[in-house]
């Protein structure tokens, strides 16, 4: 496997700035939409987008998390069983506009599972999808509404998003290529 840097800290920061701006342009002041990060990668990105939306509009959108472990379609396929995360939705979902947030959009199966989780908590008025990276290779008819960057990858590549907890500009996105196709 060969590792290359997909994005450095400055680029991740600018991309998040632009995503937040696009969300405000399209969705307005966040009084009636909430950001829901998918555990684990989407959660810190949802919080950072919320920080930026608050900085530009003066209103912080509500945030929550969804853990998809119990809704996966591959629990029995021989993959290692992931550790259970936590779904925290501190607001009523029914009638709410939701933006699902994840770090990397790949097969679309995680998003499919996240939609099922939301459905079991209520009936949102609408659900949009925001991702930092779209790396292609969809296996389901799912597309993002807000995309940070499109990365060209081979199917066996591994995209890793490392965010520092303090938003200090040292985040990285790396690409490991040359894995099994």
């Amino acid at each position, binding site marked *: 496997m060969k590792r290359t840097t997909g994005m450095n800290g400055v680029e991740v920061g600018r991309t998040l700035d632009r995503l937040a701006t696009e969300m405000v342009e399209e969705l307005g002041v966040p009084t009636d939409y909430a950001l829901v990060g998918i555990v*684990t*990668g989407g959660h810190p990105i949802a919080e950072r987008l919320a920080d930026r939306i608050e900085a530009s509009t003066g209103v912080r959108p509500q945030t929550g998390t969804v*853990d998809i472990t*119990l*809704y996966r379609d*591959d*629990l*029995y396929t*021989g*993959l*290692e*069983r*992931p*550790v*259970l*995360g*936590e*779904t925290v939705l501190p607001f009523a979902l029914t009638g709410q506009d939701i933006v699902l947030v*994840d*770090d*990397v*959009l*790949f*097969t679309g*199966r*995680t998003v499919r599972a996240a939609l*099922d989780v939301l459905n*079991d*908590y*209520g009936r949102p008025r609408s659900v949009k999808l925001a991702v930092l990276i779209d790396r292609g290779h969809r296996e389901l008819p799912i597309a993002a509404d807000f995309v940070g960057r499109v990365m060209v990858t081979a199917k066996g590549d*591994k*995209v890793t998003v490392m965010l520092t907890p303090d938003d200090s500009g040292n985040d990285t996105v790396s690409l490991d290529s040359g894995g099994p196709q």
Partner: protein
Amino acid sequence: MKRKDMLGLRGVSKEDIVEILDTAERFRNVSERQIKKVPTLRGRTVVTFFMENSTRTRMSFDLAAKRLSADTLGFSAGSSSTKKGETLMDTARNIDAMKPDAIIIRHSAAGAPHMLAKAFPWSVLNAGDGINEHPSQALLDMLTMRDHLGSLAGKTIGIVGDVYHSRVARSNIFGLTTMGANVVVAGPGTMCPPSMAALGVEVRHSIDEVAEDADVIMMLRIQRERLQPGMMATVNEYSRFYGLDLDRLNKAKPEALVMHPGPINRGVEMSPEVADGERSVIMEQVTNGIAIRMALLYLLVGGESAGGDSNAS
């Protein structure tokens, strides 16, 4: 955690117990949602096989399996063909032919679940085997204790009553001592002989000696179905010497918890004021039971082993 069965807490590591309790904490919120169901065990079949009476444990396992979307079917002593003389192994072979994924068994013979676990490929969960073990009950007790005490290490847990015949007590003793708690027990000599100390507990002689320093007072049910003649003079006498009433509870630590695995013989091992009092966490035990049993089914039946993520975003 890598195991096919949950037969008892004897020999189960601290890490595995912590994993089960942590997983159960995550499952709690499923029962608090409007839609109390996750699709995790969709298409799996869970059989409840109860050869002794049970209401709580059976309903709890049944509900846990249903909240994980498994299909459940049950059969019990009164209605089954064992009444017609079928052996346990023959009954199990017939269940096996129906392709289950897990069996939850309660049986009056100690070791019955172990025998099935050895002979068949599906997961076996022991829901009580004779006077041996009842691991899911002990795990839900430990979860309830951890909720209130924070940690189990160094805490003193008192168990009072028919300790010798209690599979609940035995599983708790194994689990709690593994977690680093001090277990003290008391009961009439016929039900709590000094030889219990071999399990790593301290045997005391009266309920008052247990109550004086316990963080938890766990009262056991007098199991009339397992008592031989002469083990107890009269119920009234037992209650006078070993029952927990308000006078006795008032001498305990003010924050001591009162627990009981149910069903309660009101006025025998525990007075109604204590059972319904503010230090009683008996109903929390029942609620935690569903989360513990969901965690066990998930960890034993749901997919492969723990750890890692699959990068399948």
